[in-house]
Each structure stands twice: as C-alpha cells, then as structure tokens.
C-alpha cells in the first residue's frame, strides 16, 4: 500500500510540475478524465498519435526549409497549423506556443525565424516526449502495483 501511495504521490507531483513548467495545460487533464474502463489507454493512444504526427510534420517542415531558395511557406504553414492543432488537442502548451510564433514567421516568409522556430519545436517536442514517457511509466507502475491513477486537479 505504501508503494502505491508513494508512486501516486510521485505521479501527482510530477504531473503538477509538468503543469507548472508549462509543458502541459488543462486540456491534458481533460484527456485524463476521458480515460475510463472502456478505453484504458486513451491518453497513451492519443499521445502516441500526437508523437507520430509531430515527427511527420517536423520532418516535412525540415525538408521544406532545407531548400535555400523558394521555400514553400504555404506548405510549412499548413504543417505548422496541423502541429498547432495536434498540440492543442493534447494540451502540449509549450509546443503550441512555439507553433503560434512559427506561424507568424511563416506568414512573414522569414526563413531564418522559421528555422529557429523549427529547432525550438523539435526541442520542445523531444522534451515533452521524454516527460510524457516518464509519466506513462509512472502510471504503469501504479497500475502494476494495484493502485488507481489519481486525478490531478
């Protein structure tokens, strides 16, 4: 019982820190609440979808921005829009924030800014991925120990 309690406290602390540091926002909490007996892996599922999506989009954008001349800003913009939508769906606040900046650069057709933003997005994305994976691991541990995942306010 102690182990479970400990893990649960750890889980709560960790997710609180994620919220505090702005990696995640309220939307993620909503997602957690949507998870129930009928769809036990809902959050993980959505997250993995998000990761796949992100990687694809980041690669797309990277490829588009590699060209020295004639960058297809429209295509980049579309990708950024997608990314923004996805990140807002999952509640990845920091990724979403970067995306907003990214789009303004795209509209301005500023390649330098775009590249900088792409780097930022990649960074934020990998950070988030790590953090979330840690979080999911914690969840699994709690479940394995027989506890229930506490709800974070």
């Amino acid at each position, binding site marked *: 019982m102690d182990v479970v309690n400990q893990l649960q406290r750890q889980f709560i602390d960790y997710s609180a820190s994620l919220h505090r540091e702005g990696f995640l926002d309220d939307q993620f909490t909503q*997602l957690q609440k949507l998870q129930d*007996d*009928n769809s036990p892996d809902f959050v993980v599922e*959505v997250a993995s*979808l998000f990761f*796949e*999506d992100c990687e694809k989009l980041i690669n797309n954008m990277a490829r588009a921005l590699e060209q020295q001349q004639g960058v297809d800003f429209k295509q980049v913009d*579309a990708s950024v829009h997608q990314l923004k939508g996805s990140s*807002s*769906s999952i509640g990845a606040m920091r990724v979403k924030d970067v995306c907003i900046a990214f789009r303004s650069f795209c509209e301005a057709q500023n390649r330098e800014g775009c590249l900088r933003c792409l780097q930022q997005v990649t960074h934020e994305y990998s950070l988030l991925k790590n953090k979330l994976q840690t979080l999911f691991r914690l969840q699994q541990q709690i479940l394995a120990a027989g506890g229930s995942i506490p709800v974070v306010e």
Partner: protein
Amino acid sequence: MGLKLQQSHHHQSVAVKGNEQMGTKRGYTFIQSNRDWLPKLILLWVMVMGFISTWIYKKMDADNNVRREEVLSSMCDQRARMLQDQFSVSVNHVHALALLVATFHYYKNPSAIDQETFAEYTARAAFERPLLSGVAYAETVVHSGREKFEKQHGWTIKTMQREPSRLRDEYAPVIFSQETISYIESLDMMSGEEDRENIVRARATGKAVLTSPFRLLGSHHLGVVLTFPVYKSKLPPKPTMEERIVATAGYLGGAIDVESLVENLLGQLAGNQAILVNVYDITNSSDPLVMYGHQNQDGDWAVVHESKLDFGDPFRKHQMICRYHQKAPTSWTALTNVFLFFVICLLVGYILYGAVIHIVKVEDDFREMQELKVRAEAADVAKSQFLGTVSHEIRTPMNGMLALLLDTDLSSTQRGYAQTAQVCGKALITLINEVIDRAKIEAGKLELETVPFNIRSIFDNVLSLFSEKSRNKGVEVSRDKTNRKPSLAVFVSDKVPEMVMGDLGRFRQIITNLVGNSVKFTERGHIFVKVHLAESTQPVADTKVETCLNGGSDEGLLISSACQFKTGYEAADERNSWDSFRHLVVDEELRYDAPINTIDEASRGFTLMVSVEDTGIGIPLIVQDRVFTPFMQADSSTSRNYGGTGIGLSITKCLVELMGGHISFISRPQVGSTFSFTTVFKRCNKASYNDTKKSIVELPSGFKGLKAIVVDGKPGKQNGHLFKLPKVILLAKNITNVELEKAKAAGFADTVIMKPMRASMAVACLQQVLGIGKKRQAGKDMLNGSPVLQGLLCGKKILVVDDNMAHQRVFAGALKKFGAAVECRESGKAALKLLQLPCCFYACFMDIQMPEMDGFEATHPIRMMESKANEQMNGGMDEDSGRKGEWHVPILAMTADVIHATYDAGLKCRMDGCVEAL
C-alpha cells in the same frame, strides 16, 4: 382534412348499416313475421271457442236428457211394478173369494152361502178390495138344468140387456152379488160375447182373466172385469182343460176400476205431478186400448218410457207409457257454465292478443331504440373522431409555433413573455395529446409497440419531471413549515429486470398520469412509487411478500437505521407502509440465495406491479366507482381547484388494459390514495438488447463497483446510487436560492443534488464534479449542463471529420463519454460519402481546415443534396410546412480560429454552428 372527415363518415355509415342488418336479423321473430295475421287469428280463436262452447253445451244437455230418461224409466218401472202388485193383490182377493164360494157353497151341503151372506161378507170385506167396485158370483147352468134353476131361485135368467135369456147351451147367471152391484143379479154373464170368451178362457186355464177396458156402469171410470173360475170338486194335481171345464161350477167376477187404481197409486208416489202415465191394453197391438190416461193430453213426447205390465192374464198384454208432463227445462247451469267458459276464453284470447300486441310494440320500440342507439354511437364516434382530427390539426402547427417561439434573440421582457407562451403552449399540447389518445383508444386504433427499455430510467425521468413541481408546490403552500411538502420516492425491486420489452411511451404515460395526479392532489406527506414483480400464479395480495423486494445486501445500511418512513403520514393502503416495506427487505435478505429459475422466466413474459401511493386529499367515497369514467372528476370544484380535464385516469385505465393488466385503487378521503396497476412485459432477450442498446436512454454503468456512503436523516430515499469518496456532494431535499448560494460559497459549487435522487442527475453531477467532458461550444446548439448533454447525445450517431488524428481521437473520446456513437473520418470527401442520403447521423462536427476538401467545401454539396431531396418531398406534402425540411444534418464547424469571419463564412455555407476547437 376534408377527405379524412369524409372517410370517417363513410366508415361510420358502414357501421350503422352493419348494425341495422344485425338488428333486423335479431328482431325477425315469429310474432313479427305474422303480425298481419293477428286480427284474423283472434277472430278464429273466438270462433273456435264458440264452437267448443256449443259442443260442451250440447254434451251437457245430452247428459241431462239421459239422466231424465233414466229417472223417467225408473219412475215408470216403479209405477208399473206397484200397479202390478196392487192388481195381483186384488186378483188374490178375488181368488180367495172364489175359494170361499167353492168351499161354502159347493162343498157344504146344504150350501152355507146365500145371497144375503155373500152380500154381507163382501160388503164387510170390501176394505180388502178397494179397487173392486163389486164382486159377483155366476153359476154355470146347463140348458137342461135351466128350469130347475129358475124355479129354485124364483127368477128367470136374463141377458145383459135385461131380457129373458134366449135358449143357449149354457148359462152363467149371477146368483150372488155385492150390494154395490146387485143390479147384475140374474144376468147371464155368457150372454155378452166378450164375457163369454172370458168365461170360457177362465175355466179352461183356471186363472183370472181380464176383459178389455170399458166404461164401468156405475162410475163411468175405465175398468176391466176380472173373472175367476170356481170348481165344484177338487181338481187333480195336473188337470187338463176338459177336466177343468167339467169341474167348473161357476165364475167369480169383479170389476176393477183401473182408473181409480192408477190414480190412487200415483197419488201415493212422489213426483206424480212431473210425469204423465198412460196404461194401455195392447193385446191387439195395432189398436192399443186406453186403460188409463188421456190420449191427447199435452206432454213431452220426446222422452217416453214403456213398461210392461203383467196382470196375471196370459192372453192380455198391458203396458204403461210414462212421459214427462213438461218439456225438459232449459239447463241453466249448463248454459251458465258454458257462458262463463266462453267469457273466460274470450278474456284469455284478449289477454293473449294484448300480450302479442304489446310484444310487437315493444319490439318495434326496441328496434327503434336500437337504431337510435346506433345513431347515437355513430355520432359519438364521429364526435371523437372530429375531436381527434381537430386536435391533431391543432397540434402540428402548435408544435411549429412552440419550436419557433424562442428561436430568435429576444429582449429579456420578450423572452419572459415568450417563455410563458411556451409553457402555456406545452400545457395545451399535453391536453391535446390526451384528447388524441382518448380518441385513438375509443376508435380502437391505439397500437402498442414493443421496444426494449429500461424501467428504472423511466421512473427516474418521470420523477425528475415531478420533483420540480412538487418542490415548487411545497414551497408555495407552506414556506415556513419544513415538513409540509410531499416528498417523492420510487422503489424498484431488484427482481425487476433491467431491460424489458414493451411500450415505453405508454408505460411512461401511465406513470406520468398517476404520479401527476398524486402530485396534484398531495400537499403534504409523501408520494411513493413501488415497483415489483407480481407472479402470475399467485393472487396479488399474496405475492407482495414474495415479490416486493429491495436491492439485496447493499441496502444493509438502510435497514439498520430504518425508522418511520418519510413523513410519518398515514397512507390509504397499509400494504405499502414502511413497516411492511422494511419487513420485505429483511425477508429478501434472508432468502437472498434462493435459486431462481432463470430459464423458465426468460422465456415468458412477466407481470409488473406498480403502485403509486400518496397522502393527498383522497377520493370521496361517492365518486370512487366512477373514477375511471372519462371527464369525471370528484366534483366540479376539483377542476376549479386543481385543473385538468379528468380524462387522464380513463386513458390510463385503457392503456393498462391494453397492456394486459388491470388497475385498481384504494382511497380514503383526507388520508390518501393508492393506485395499483399491473402490466405484462416481455423479458428482453440479449440479442435484441445488444442491437438496440445504443438507441436507448440508459444510465452509464461507469459507477459500478464504487462504494459510497449516503448520508441522509431519512432512509429509504436512496436507491443505491453511489459516489466516489473524495467528493462531497450535498444532498438537499429542497433548497432555496439563498441556500444554494451559501452552499456554493462553501465549496459545493455545482455539486448540489436536488432530491429526489435521480440516477441521471447523480451521473451528471458526478461528471461535473470529476470534470469530465468540459467543452465549450458556440452557436445555438450549445447547451450548458451535462445531464442535458447526456440526454441529448446518448445513443446518437455523430460524425467527426478531422484530418488531425490526435484531435479527432480526443474529440471522439469526449463525445463517446456522453454516450454518443462516434464515427470518425479524416477528410471532407470521406465524410461526404457517409453523409449521402438517407443518412442517419444526428450531427456532424467538421474541421474547417483540411487538405483536399475543407469543411466549407464539404458542407456545400451536402446542403445541395438535402434541399433537393426536401423539395421533392415538400412537393407532395404541405402538411409539414411548420417544420423545416425533413433532411437537415446539423453540421458544426470546428476551428481554432475564433475570428468572426470564419463563423460567418460557416453560416454562409449553411453550417449550423461553430465549435471552437482547442
């Protein structure tokens, strides 16, 4: 509508015709078919009776006559016999005299008798011979001895003519005679021809002989002369005729006055006035000689009796003929009897005739009344149909009006008015629906459908509907006294299956009616709905202990703290009281592990027993027997005080009976009423349950297995709905706005559950507390509050179109949480394929920005398609003008852009709303 009315009229006339045919067939009795013959029949009857009476009269008369004849014959015979006797007595006396003469005149010598002695003796012995006017003795004198004889007596023999006799062989002069006839002394008896014959006959036979009747010399009466022979010597024992003739010494004769004899005789007998007696000498049968009586006397010749008379003379024949003096009198008794009989027959005939006429009249009246009845019924049906049709015609536009009433932006005052109008309109529609139901039931067109549904959620819904009303009422009636308001509770036995097959709408209507009535008439106390199985094999009264069950072991808490149920008010039917309720729960606990024969139960239907108990004003005893009559309320003041039309209960009764059950009630005025009804439902088999599960309003099962503590001062209110521990939910029976504010301030914001506890309310509240499904929606379809959303989305198919997989997944998850069946598509094109008509989606959420075809582009063709289809349909049907087109899938745009332009663009493309996606 005109067409409809015509049709109904046609139908009705057919019904009338059918009835008429039936009526004539039934009324075609023997009497009816022969009614024209009735007067002839009565005439015939009278005639027949007349004949019968005559016949009877005749028969009686004949009997009378026979009797008369018998009387006559017996009288006649009697007279004849007596006459004969008297006559023979006289003959015997003459015989005795003859012997006397023989003895003293011939056997004595000298003779002891002379004329003097004879005269004296006969005179003195005359009393013995009253009928004989006189006797005389004539001696036989042969011609040779005539002179000696004449000398001896001193006189000559004379003939009857008193002349000296001529010469003859033999003489028979009278020598002795009674003084009365002394004039015949010395007369020769043989001088008369007839006398001579008599004398010859007498001496030959030795017996008395008679002459034919003649008028006697003295009295002029008819008489006969009796002649007896006197023999000289004693005769041998069997003398021959010659011996007799030789031995003859003389003849004793006497004149018998027959007329006096018969007169005397008749005078001695009774009834001589009634009959006429004639005596005849019929020796010569062709010419009877009258001996007595008048030949031409009047008398009844119809009845005549002849009696033979034997006066001892074998050569003479006599007879007596008797007849009645008067004709047979008319038999008054017979006549009276017959007359009475005839009168009685006439009366009987008259009575029968009257009865038949009456029957005919009654039958005519009956037929007429039947016809009138049929017409009245037809009129009633027509009225009902008219009412139904008109109600239907009113309902359709009314629905349209109500739907449109609050559709636009209104100022607060306008909205207030419009809301009032809507409430009124809804009340009106409810009334109209009742009328339509009534009409349908009367027309027999109400058909029950069979769909699976959840009984508990029905009760939950209905109670939520009325909890508001009863709460308001409680507040209005007595704001100051906390306990003076009805509390609502429902109790469903665990044995009642969760899903049943039946008519959801009608069942709900029944419950609504009964609970509605209870709420309407109850101002304090409680309204308690109890649902349990009634086993069909046992009478209802017995089954309550067996079947009224509560939900098993998790009710232990409830039982342990059981106290007086609810409000402490007495209920009309003590069966439902809390004590028995608790007893049942305990009882159920004890035998909880009893095996249940599920195989048997699954295959057949079962009877559900529902009772609604209230502590209201009750129903007055006088009107209890017409509670289920349409338009009948307890009294006219009821409708003034409580409103309503009074057809609710009659509809309820019809519905219950349609559902194969029956309804009854127990009510005590000022104490309360308990309405109980049974319905038959089929058990829901699994296959159909699974098929239809998605379209059913049901309570989420997500709370199964969670534990909860229900804190309430009064047990019995909770039905085992459970809450997560860390959340504190305030349960309030009745809460004012001030209290609500206070509670919110204390941290119970949005977590107040109003009682009565309802499952869906609990769910909604829990969802709110747990923060599930928070969504912000823009547009008209937006509704705040999860329970509404729950009801709105549950079981509905919703299409989500988004190219962003993560977003799509999240959105789908959120919608699924509310029970929606979600389909996902990744592009506008794929969505378009799914939205081809006819489509079954309740709504479509569509992302605006998508590759290939965006939301706007996808919406356009859908709308085109729909309007085309609607045009085709509306061409044929004008009735639905109140509604918008039949086909219209609400399409909601999803976008992260909250710029108004996008929203407007969406509306231009005839999207229905806009959701701000995160």
